[in-house]
């Protein structure tokens, strides 16, 4: 098994990768031995009026850009532009996210301030500047990747990658002529002069491979695989153990059935006789209202109490009794209409009796002791008294 794989690998490794070349000439190259020679050669080539030429050296030779009369590189400006873009983007991002869109009070500090934004702004400046510098240096300025450039796989390029210094003149140069160029290269001391032809599959331009069907198909496959994986993980894998520990916990939930307690409830009732904080038991609970004689309204009559009583009355009582206690229910017959609160019977009741009805309920009306606090019930009593007096106003009330 392993032997087979080894043989296969050997076979692949020994496969001849060299592409066939066409007859059309791409360039003529010559090799030089020392940095001084190549500097000299580059200078003479520019003097001779060649423009489409290049110098290939295993490392950057100092002063070569002057000898080749190259323009200053624009890489620095690129860095500045993209670095500045990073600064702006960071400040806008932080300003909008924490200053506008998601204002969070953290230690009473301003939502957006410059000092805490500095670290991230700096990092994003460097990040964008650095990525743009490297990326654009390779792609925009150097037109890479270009792996099928005709210079590849020639003796010329292999030598210049190691210890020789090469100068190449391209056939597209306007002064190009095979015999002259060969003669010229010899005259400036070039050795191993080599004619370099195009590959049979001619790609002398940097063709953007991103529009290749294969590349687009690869992108599509990568997209689909990534999306499906991400979806699968987020939708299924994270719901499997052990990632489900947040919602599969060893505990009983409020409405769950319990097998542990005899009554089958997981919620436990309070101990017999438990009284909630602030609750005072009502001594006439469940008794007829004739028994109620000793209850007096503890609240004073003033605007505040009446306003409270009005608010509570309108919320809890008015749906059946009507806003003025006239028994005009807004429930449109879903419940039988209650009697008016302006009958003689109710008017002659003591405050305690009204309070007792609210607390204890009467006929269809149920107890409101749970919904309305004790003081609010007394406030309602005051308000009902005010309503009663308003509908039976005497002349002196107008003063």
């Amino acid at each position, binding site marked *: 098994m392993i032997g087979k794989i080894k043989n296969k690998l050997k076979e692949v*490794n020994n496969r001849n990768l060299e592409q066939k070349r066409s007859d059309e000439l791409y360039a003529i190259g010559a090799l030089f031995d020392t940095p001084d020679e190549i500097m000299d050669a580059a*200078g003479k080539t520019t003097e001779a009026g060649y423009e489409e030429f290049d*110098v290939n050296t295993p490392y950057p030779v100092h002063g070569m850009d002057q000898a080749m009369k190259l323009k200053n590189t624009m890489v620095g400006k690129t860095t500045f532009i993209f670095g500045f873009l990073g600064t702006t983007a960071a400040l806008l991002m932080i300003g909008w996210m924490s200053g506008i869109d998601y204002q969070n009070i953290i230690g009473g500090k301003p939502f957006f301030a410059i000092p805490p934004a500095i670290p991230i702004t700096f990092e994003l400046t*460097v990040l964008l500047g650095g990525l743009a510098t490297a990326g654009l240096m390779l792609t925009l300025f150097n037109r890479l*990747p270009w*792996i099928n450039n005709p210079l590849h796989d020639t003796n010329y390029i292999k030598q210049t990658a190691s210890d020789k210094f090469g100068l190449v003149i391209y056939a597209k140069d306007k002064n190009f002529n095979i015999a002259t160029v060969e003669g010229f290269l010899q005259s400036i001391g070039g050795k191993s002069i080599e004619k370099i032809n195009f590959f049979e599959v001619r790609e002398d331009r940097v063709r953007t491979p991103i529009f290749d069907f294969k590349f687009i198909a690869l992108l599509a496959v990568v997209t689909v695989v990534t999306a499906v994986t991400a979806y699968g993980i987020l939708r299924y894998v994270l719901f499997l153990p052990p990632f489900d520990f947040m919602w599969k916990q060893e505990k009983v939930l409020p409405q769950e059935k319990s097998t542990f307690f005899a009554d089958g409830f997981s919620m436990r009732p309070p101990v017999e006789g438990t009284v909630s904080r602030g609750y005072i038991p009502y001594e006439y609970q469940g008794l007829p209202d004739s028994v109620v004689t000793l209850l007096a309204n503890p609240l004073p009559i003033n605007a505040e109490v009446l306003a409270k009583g009005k608010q509570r009355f309108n919320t809890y009582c008015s749906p059946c009794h009507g806003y003025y206690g006239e028994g005009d229910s807004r429930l449109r017959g879903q419940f039988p209409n209650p009697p008016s609160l302006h009958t003689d019977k109710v008017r002659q009741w003591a405050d305690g009796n009204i309070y007792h009805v609210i607390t204890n309920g009467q006929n269809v009306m149920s107890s409101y002791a749970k919904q309305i606090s004790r003081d609010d019930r007394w406030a309602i009593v005051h308000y009902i008294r005010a309503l009663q007096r308003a509908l039976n106003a005497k002349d002196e009330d107008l003063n």
Partner: protein
Amino acid sequence: MSFDSTYTRELPLVPERSSFKEIDDVIFRPVEEAPTRKWFIAITISSLALMIGAVALANTFYFGIGTWGNNSTVGWGFGIVNFVFWIGIGHAGTLISAILYLFRQRWRTGIARFAEAMTIFAVITAGIFPVIHTGRPWLAAYLIPYPNQNSIWVNFNSPLLWDVFAVSTYFTISFVFWSVGLIPDIAAMRDRASGIKKRIYTVLSLGWRNSNRHWQHYERAYLILAGLSTPLVLSVHTIVSFDFAVAILPGWHTTIFPPYFVAGAIFSGFGMVATVLIILRKVYDMEHIITLDHLEKMCKILLATGSMVGYAYCMEFFMAWYSGYIFEQFVFINRAFGPYAWAYWTMFSCNVIFPQLFWFKKIRRNIPIMMLLVILVNVGMWFERFVIVVTSLHRDFLPSSWAMFYPTWTDLALLLGSFGFFFTCVLLFVKVLPSISLAELKAVTENAQPTHKHHH
């Protein structure tokens, strides 16, 4: 004006005048030849350590970080200690490749590529720890400000978020810097290789053809990347120190932390680079490229940064006394004489006292003693982070909540695993990519640059 008068050279960078072909052969030998026995032994050990770490990691993921020694008093245990330690290791790489490049310290050439690779592996190793320390690493994406269904954004006022940006930017830019440096060397390997290797190198080299029209942009970009990396490397450990300094805890809340952390980071990083280089040059017979002179210079930097760190240790005590703040004073007395005094004095002797031996030239040029000292530096710098994290936390304002931190086997296995991961990456890197920058090294050999007799 000759080249040599512009760049004064103290000593030849590649002493025995080697031809470029010989340099190619030496540098590409580890990559092109079958791995040696030594390499296999080394990677067996490192991957064994890695596997032990992987078991501990699985244990952590399955049972949660309750398997660690952290408790409610010492909430930051080994997780943060290891994070800060490994991030610090990374700093030497950028210092060597970027800062020394800007200062025209051309002796850096032989070790820069390797140090950069170490930076990248160290930052990856470091990045693992805060992520697993969160307890739910699969939710790490919440650290990134992305529009989410809860319509909430990250807290931009938190040093922990600055840390996320700093460390990820640092990793990205270091990786870019390293990759850009690799392109010409991979192209040189491509032109020597055949078959599948050639295909891989062809793609990785992007079709680089050593053109001087390209070198022009390339060199400028390299210079700019060095310029960007320099403030970046200083910012990263500064921001890491903010994780501590912005808190109001005595022992952490000091303004000395950023420079102190940066100096410590460079110190520990150089310790690690020296440790690995001493072994590497021996294993791959690169003694004439990574020379004793290189190592001596690294020892000098260790001496300088070690003394800076020592100054910071003393200054912390002075400030605790001078502040008149009893809680601060207690923390420092507790550090030096409390239950973790052994950790404090290990740190102090390894980082401050022993490196002082580098004042002696004999010791700077003695490989076995140097090896011992740089390993002690690594130990000391790990303990520095332990002291900062654990001794500041374990006795807080309420004596009733005082507690000790005891690492569990999971903690120790994760620490071991981090070393295993780091060294496995280093060994694989040495095997598959040139660990010395070929193009840069050629450019600084004798007679590599024109004498400029024709052009001025």
